[in-house]
């Protein structure tokens, strides 16, 4: 399979680009930020995503989806990134659906139709500290009657307060670091004993710190098998990592593009600043980095979709590489914008903020570089 987009993928790219640029350009983010929307995203846009068919990408045809994969989902994510569109697409239609794909038919029937229609929103409660470290999940899910009782805390659950269902990773056995003993749960909105503290993040996303106080769940809530949640979590993480990496390709590319536009129009010392070779070389280097980051993200998506052995390595390499490249894009972007880059009026600062948020989401470039080393056995 070639790494460039085939005809169908190119069509998807064109329609996503057109749709998101029209319906959710950067001004859309500003609107939701400035009206201090508690969700941080537009439910109407979410329904439109459903209508466009985007939300069906990761669901199997059997479940009413399109049976496509992360390469196609990544196309949507990139356009989201370019436009900084606030959307639950990543948590819901990519990572969430991929987790449900590892769950029972009953769960899929319960949630997928709403997701595909752009009605249902999912959130992901994985991290327990401010750095992504899923191997350290310690939150307890004790057996209680026929079900389970959850106690503990999760940090930075994006869309937590807006979600209809939260996927929660907890330990039904063993202790932090054990592969066995993890279980994933589908926790309904407003389940008794859940408390959420909403916090707005630097990129205007809304995250929740979630406390579980004797939260009672039935056995139906289990996604996959009890104690064997690692497998489902790995699916979720792989999808989330590739998709967030793809979004970062979009963010970096968007930042680079508006910066290139600025270099072509802004004059200083009687010249357009894009004429200065010092800036040209940096822009060209940045272009090179972004192209390479895009390539590894495509490759990682393809490998994850194909389920090949090297997928874990490529996925971590992708998140690591794009983390560095897109960070370079927003830093160069602000610097090359000069003074106006510091103002809220220009968009480049918003790209910088979104990059920062995404860099932490599903593990930063350092976490994943370390994981590459570990997977290589050193």
């Amino acid at each position, binding site marked *: 399979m070639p790494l460039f987009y085939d005809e169908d993928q190119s069509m998807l790219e064109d329609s996503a680009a057109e749709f998101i640029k029209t319906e959710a350009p950067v001004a859309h983010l500003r609107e939701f930020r400035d009206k201090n929307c508690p969700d941080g995203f537009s439910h109407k846009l979410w329904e439109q995503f459903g209508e466009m068919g985007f939300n069906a990408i990761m669901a199997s045809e059997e479940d009413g989806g399109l049976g496509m994969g992360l390469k196609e989902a990544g196309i949507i994510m990139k356009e989201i990134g370019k436009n900084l569109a606030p959307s639950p697409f990543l948590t819901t239609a990519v990572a969430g659906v991929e987790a449900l794909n590892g769950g029972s038919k009953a769960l899929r029937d319960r949630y997928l139709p709403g997701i595909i229609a752009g009605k249902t929103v999912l959130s992901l409660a994985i991290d327990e500290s401010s750095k992504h470290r899923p191997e350290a999940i310690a939150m307890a899910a004790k057996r209680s009657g026929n079900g389970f009782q959850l106690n503990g805390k999760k*940090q930075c659950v994006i869309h937590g307060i807006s979600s209809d269902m939260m996927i929660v990773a907890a330990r039904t056995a063993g202790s932090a670091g054990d592969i066995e003993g993890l279980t994933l749960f589908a926790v309904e909105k407003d389940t008794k004993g859940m408390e959420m503290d909403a916090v707005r993040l*630097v*990129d205007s996303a809304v995250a929740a710190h979630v406390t579980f106080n004797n939260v009672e769940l039935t056995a139906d809530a289990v996604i996959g098998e009890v104690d064997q949640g690692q497998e489902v979590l790995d699916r979720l993480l792989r999808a989330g990592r590739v998709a967030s990496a793809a979004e970062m390709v979009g963010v970096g590319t968007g930042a680079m593009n508006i910066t290139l536009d600025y270099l072509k129009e802004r004059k200083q010392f009687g010249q357009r600043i894009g004429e200065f070779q010092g800036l040209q070389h940096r822009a060209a280097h940045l272009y090179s980095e972004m192209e390479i980051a895009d390539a590894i993200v495509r490759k990682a998506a393809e490998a994850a979709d194909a389920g090949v052995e090297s997928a874990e390595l490529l996925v971590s390499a992708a998140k690591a590489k794009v983390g560095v490249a897109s960070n370079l894009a927003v830093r160069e972007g602000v610097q090359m914008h000069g*003074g106006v880059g*510091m103002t809220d009026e220009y968009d480049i600062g918003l790209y910088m*903020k979104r990059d920062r948020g995404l860099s932490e989401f599903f593990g930063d470039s*350092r976490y994943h570089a370390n994981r590459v080393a570990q997977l290589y056995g050193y």
Partner: protein
Amino acid sequence: MSDLETFRKETIAWLEENCPAEMRKPAKSEADVCWGGRNFQFQSDAQKQWLEVNAARGWTVADWPAKYGGGGLNPAEAKILKQEMTRMGCRIPLSSFGIWMLGPALLQFGSEAQKLHYLPQIARGEIRWCQGYSEPGSGSDLVSLQTFGEDKGDHWVVNGQKVWTSYADKADWIFCLVRTDKEDKYRGISFLLFDMESEGVTTKPIKLISGNSPFCETFFDDVKVPKDQIVGQLNRGWDVAKYLLGHEREMISGGGVSNEMPSIGAAFNEIVALDPIMRAEMAAFDVDTLAFKAMGELFMDELKAKKGHPAQPNMMKYAGTELNKRRHELVMAAGGSEALEWESAATNNGAKARNWLRTKANSIEGGTSEVMLNVISKRILELPGA
């Protein structure tokens, strides 16, 4: 006991007696800083008192001559005062662009009458100043300045617009570059002082990516400026501005490393214990910080001894600001998702994120890193061409 030892002893005693306990704790935020000025609202009695006792002694500007409201200290004494204030944790009694920027320029270029008039007011914190250099369309490129002062005999009538005027909405007076000769593009600029309450002056704060608004757009619409409010010669405002930019660069270049300059890796030792890649980055950063600190020491030593290349402040500004930006990138990375919080009490209203974003201006304000590199390559390395 030497004179200096006596001075140190007396200084300690004076500080012990006069510095209120509250003023010995570090400022928590911008709001705790004493800026002075006509409309300044003191945060506390202690803040007001601490300014007043210092102003009375001339110690807001300890090394200025006494006749201009200063403390008349020699460099060795001024250093001791600074050391002891640092040691006891005393806050700076008065933060002021008048002290840091205009004052040195007035001391160098002002008439005796101007010195006697303005400097004591600056020293006492009675006038808060802002700086009018940049204009829309001329950031690092001051030559393309448009704000024009038309000669009307005993005054100029100034029209134009400035941007990046720090705290223009809070300032009492402005020191401002104004074109006074349209023919001479490279000179033709004068350095004027005027009251921000003059008719025709309006300001509009600029909202920054950090969410704060320390800068303004400032508009001049037929503002009258009396002829005795020029500093230096007519059409030679560049000389004053360049002198003053040098001071600003020194000030900003110091920003790369705080006085204490603690190890960033040690500050986040629990995080780096779990993240070997971050540990490596922080180790490299600590190396660079130690090295830059040594460079700062060498630079200051050379400055005092009037050795070193006159363009060296440009190098310090470049290296210091880039280092500081890197530091804040690392702080954000170490902070992880918690550092992303923008409006939570737990994060002091997103202080880490806002500080991080603020540092992005370091390499833009006071001359961009690119301009610094141009200056180094031309004036120090003597590379050819444009």
